[in-house]
């Protein structure tokens, strides 16, 4: 009996939290076209606030742009047409994420080219290190050192001992 009560309480709790999330989601009962308005507005950059989307910005221009987007969505225009409308007027500045078209390809490809060049450079350097001779154990590592340098080192060491 006690277990049954606990189970019922849990079900009730989950049920309540579920309906609360629906109540406070802010999307309940909104016009179905609003989702598209939100999607378009989140991808467009507010022209006066640099790094905020039209959807997030509180500037007058962004608010009025949102109204224009809403009007166009309700008039049945497609997402591509609306995005293009703003592109034709503000250029690719209006896209929060740069497009991959035209000279923007450079922007997208440069990191990739840099990465490939870096890997090639690192590979070359490792190959170079592997090729360079390693002094085998037991041989005189000081071989090939200028005798004059050797003498100076010895002099310095002698001075330290004093």
């Amino acid at each position, binding site marked *: 009996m006690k277990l049954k009560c606990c189970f019922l309480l849990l079900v009730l709790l989950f049920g309540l939290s579920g309906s609360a999330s629906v109540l406070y989601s802010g999307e309940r009962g909104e016009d179905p076209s609003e989702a598209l308005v939100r999607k378009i507005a989140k991808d467009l950059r507010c022209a006066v606030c640099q790094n905020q989307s039209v959807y997030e910005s509180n500037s007058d221009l962004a608010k009025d742009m949102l109204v224009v987007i809403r009007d166009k969505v309700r008039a049945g225009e497609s997402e591509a047409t609306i995005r293009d409308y703003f592109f*034709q007027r503000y250029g690719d500045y209006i896209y929060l994420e740069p497009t991959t078209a035209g000279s923007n390809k450079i922007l997208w490809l440069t990191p990739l080219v840099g990465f490939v060049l870096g890997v090639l450079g690192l590979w070359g350097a490792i190959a170079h290190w592997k090729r360079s001779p390693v002094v085998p154990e037991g041989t005189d590592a000081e071989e090939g050192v200028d005798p004059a340098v050797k003498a100076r080192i010895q002099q310095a060491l002698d001075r330290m001992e004093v």
Partner: protein
Amino acid sequence: MKSAWKAVLLLAIMAILVLFALGLNNDPHAIPSPLINRAAPDIVALDLAGEPIRLADQRGKWVLVNFWGSWCVSCVAEHPYLIELARKTRDRTDFTIMGVDFKDTEQGARQFLARHGDPGYRHAFDPNQKIAIDWGVYGAPESYLLDPNGRIRLKQTGPLYPGWFEQVALPLIQAPLTQTEKGAP
């Protein structure tokens, strides 16, 4: 081989530095208009007196379209020049000015003109800045110079300055239209 690599690396670093230096001169707030050399969107609205006004009616003339608002500080600084320009070009049959008062109230606009002087040309009233957005406007004042075919030839972001007409507009107005510019937009 090694020196060749060093030269390539040096050139690459130099190129990046040059691009960086050039980029420093860019104004991060300026948005270049893609509308230059394209047909201007038509303006069909009411003027400040409530009378219908249409940009296409000015076809055949060079038109200076000036976007302003009574809330805009730079527009106050620009206004004396607009009054002077309107007075100077009053007798020209090939040039006219049209204002677009945007994101404003009719009362605010009237008070602005009463206080700072009325240049005498008409203003389209655009309270929801629908016309401004249609023209890619993002600040005030912004001005566009249209050729007789209704094509936007240049955009001035920020206030027009004394001598602007002679230095910037007149050379365009006096230059013969090229074959493509003669065609309908």
